[in-house]
């Protein structure tokens, strides 16, 4: 091996290590900054940690499902609307049947169906999946709003009895659900051919096709996993607040994209996709927003935190896109 090749190999390894550990390092720094800010202000750390966990839980599970779609080089902007729709149908089911089990079943099934519909439409019409997700977002939001306003009337929302899921509103139960789902996702993504082939399709669809991999099959699996995440996200939403309004989960769609990029996921998917990016990025994003809002009081806090998040987003996209500019195939 020539000296030049050796140098290239070393620099590539350094870059890989940096891109692998940078999100984790950033999360650690953000966590320390957050603790420092809370301590400086004399606020209650225990309550704030609980808030961070609750704010991240739904985002992290829905975004973990979305990683499967992003890995394919596609994206789904309808996940927030699908979460609202699943939660709405779940509440509607409970209102009609008074059955908690049926409600949970409907929440998960509707989440998966919403997501699968996008991919099936894309396959049927032979158009990019993200195009159908844009249409799905409008349809799901409109249908949910119609149900909520017609059934909610003057309340402006629909709800289940607040005590119904209250016993489940504990960090341990939510952690258990998250661990279960993320564990399954990690297993499929890292230890089965499904994950490997999805990365292959995302990195080079033509090559994958010539190797005999059917992209449509793996697209459907990706959307099904995302749908499962949507169902779990909707369920966690109802555990936290047992009511939905037309604004419920409204910001999730965009936050998912920001969170997974914060977690070190390349925006174009492919071989460097990381399933844990959603978890790391979700917490990083929530910590960054909350730290800035604590530090910058008043109306300006919100605006500045959005601007800083945008800057971080651009910076991370810049870093993760370096592989493509280096003209080297990812290894």
């Amino acid at each position: 091996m020539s000296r030049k090749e050796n140098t290239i190999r070393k620099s590539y390894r350094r870059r890989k290590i940096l891109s692998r550990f940078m999100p984790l390092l950033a999360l650690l720094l953000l966590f320390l900054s957050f603790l420092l800010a809370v301590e400086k202000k004399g606020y209650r750390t225990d309550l704030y940690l609980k808030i961070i966990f609750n704010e991240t839980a739904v985002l992290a599970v829905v975004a973990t499902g979305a990683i499967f779609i992003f890995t394919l080089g596609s994206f789904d902007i309808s996940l927030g609307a699908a979460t609202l729709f699943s939660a709405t149908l779940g509440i509607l089911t409970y209102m009609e049947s008074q059955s908690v089990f049926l409600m949970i079943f409907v929440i998960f099934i509707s989440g998966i169906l919403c997501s699968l519909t996008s991919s099936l439409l894309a396959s049927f019409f032979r158009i990019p999946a993200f195009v159908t997700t844009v249409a799905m977002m409008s349809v799901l939001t409109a249908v949910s709003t119609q149900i909520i306003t017609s059934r909610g009337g003057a309340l402006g929302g629909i709800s289940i009895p607040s005590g119904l899921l209250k016993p489940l509103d504990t960090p341990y139960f939510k952690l258990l659900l998250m661990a279960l789902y993320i564990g399954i996702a990690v297993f499929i993504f890292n230890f089965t051919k499904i994950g490997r082939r999805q990365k292959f399709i995302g990195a080079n669809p033509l090559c994958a096709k010539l190797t005999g991999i059917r992209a449509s099959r793996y697209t459907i699996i990706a959307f099904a996993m995302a749908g499962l995440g949507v169902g779990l996200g909707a369920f966690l939403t109802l555990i936290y607040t047992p009511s939905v309004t037309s604004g419920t989960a409204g910001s999730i769609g965009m936050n998912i994209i920001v969170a997974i990029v914060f977690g070190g996921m390349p925006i174009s998917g492919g071989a460097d996709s990381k399933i844990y990016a959603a978890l790391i990025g979700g917490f990083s994003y929530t910590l960054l927003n909350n730290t800035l809002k604590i530090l910058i009081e008043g109306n300006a806090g919100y605006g500045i935190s959005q601007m800083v998040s945008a800057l971080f987003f651009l910076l991370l996209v810049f870093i993760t896109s370096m592989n493509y500019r280096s003209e080297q195939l990812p290894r």
Partner: protein
Amino acid sequence: MKKNLRNILSIALSCTLLIGALASCGGNGEPSAEKNQNVSGKNKENPATAEGGGEDRAFEAFKTGVLVADVSGEEALAFRDYYENYIAEQYPIEFLYSEQLEDAASERSAIEKFAAQGCKAIISFSGSDRARQIESCEENKLYYAVASGMLDDKQYEEHKDSPYFVAQIGPSMETEYNAGREMGKYFLEQGAEKIALYGAFIPNPMHVYRAAGVLSGLGLSYGGSDDKDAVAGQIFQDQGIKLEKVSGDQAELAAYFQGYGDTTTDELNAAIQAEPDAFISVGMATTFFTQQLNTSAVPFSDIDSFTSGNRKAMEEGELTYLAGKYSSSVGPVIAAVINAVNGHPLRNEDGSALSVSQDYQVASDLESFDRYFKADRGSSPIYDKNLLDQMIGQDTDLETFTKLVHNPA
């Protein structure tokens, strides 16, 4: 490649330093709010006491969290100005505002943040799920009051006995309906026959009831019904008003539109081209359409607040009727909160949380407009310290409090 690495590391380091610097500068070094009950509002020179009503009364300094769904509207800003620049000067209270809240989850999260920041009470201007707001306040042992609105009757019955639920003071849905009805009646009495109606953000419940009231005031039925709840129910179902379902002899609904988006200007122009005798809005028209309506020479009305912008529209433009709130109308709710935090909450005779419906004030000319606008300015609001002191303290009774809510003058 080394250059790239250097760039990345320097950017990362800069970001870290930026956050570190913000973290260092942001803190004011104050000890925990839990440990320190000193004043954190503007009334720092007299932190622990406030005098009024001819007697010395000691008030505990405390922080109050304010939940808001609107952070930029003229009315919302006027309320905020009154709290932060008048109330915080007169009483040892610091107001912490939430960001714009869009759903029940963000409301709960905001309440928990206020609890973590050492607040003792929450005042809510946000209505995604008020029942859940009360439950979150109970969990975090925070007093809770609704300003400028009310809970649904069923929700109120469910939560009225909670010791943390202090009061709800604001227009009820009945009041919203009546405000719309009076507005409709006004134009009917003025001889208007052809009406254009703006439904604002239907299916927002407040706007639905106002719109149902307008139809009633104009003598119109909707879907064959005149009943308040039936009409409101149909509007909820339809997500708006369908012109073909409107019928009546006294007036004609010539145009209807709602919302604000890409097609709104076209819809407004179409409504104006229908040559209505009046343009009735159930909210937000003075924010969105004042200029166009003034140039159209169509008399218009709105349910909004007594602001300088609306005064100008009434003086120089075509605004002929305004049902509104004035900025200090949110004063009584803070009086109720002060009482609760200081250990002598004012409650109904049966021990339930205070529930007082606050009517809109109506102006149909500049003189009546100024009665609320000029009398409710900056350092001399209608609910000034003298008036509020009559509502604060253990000697205050329910009758006096309610009377002053209904008639501050």
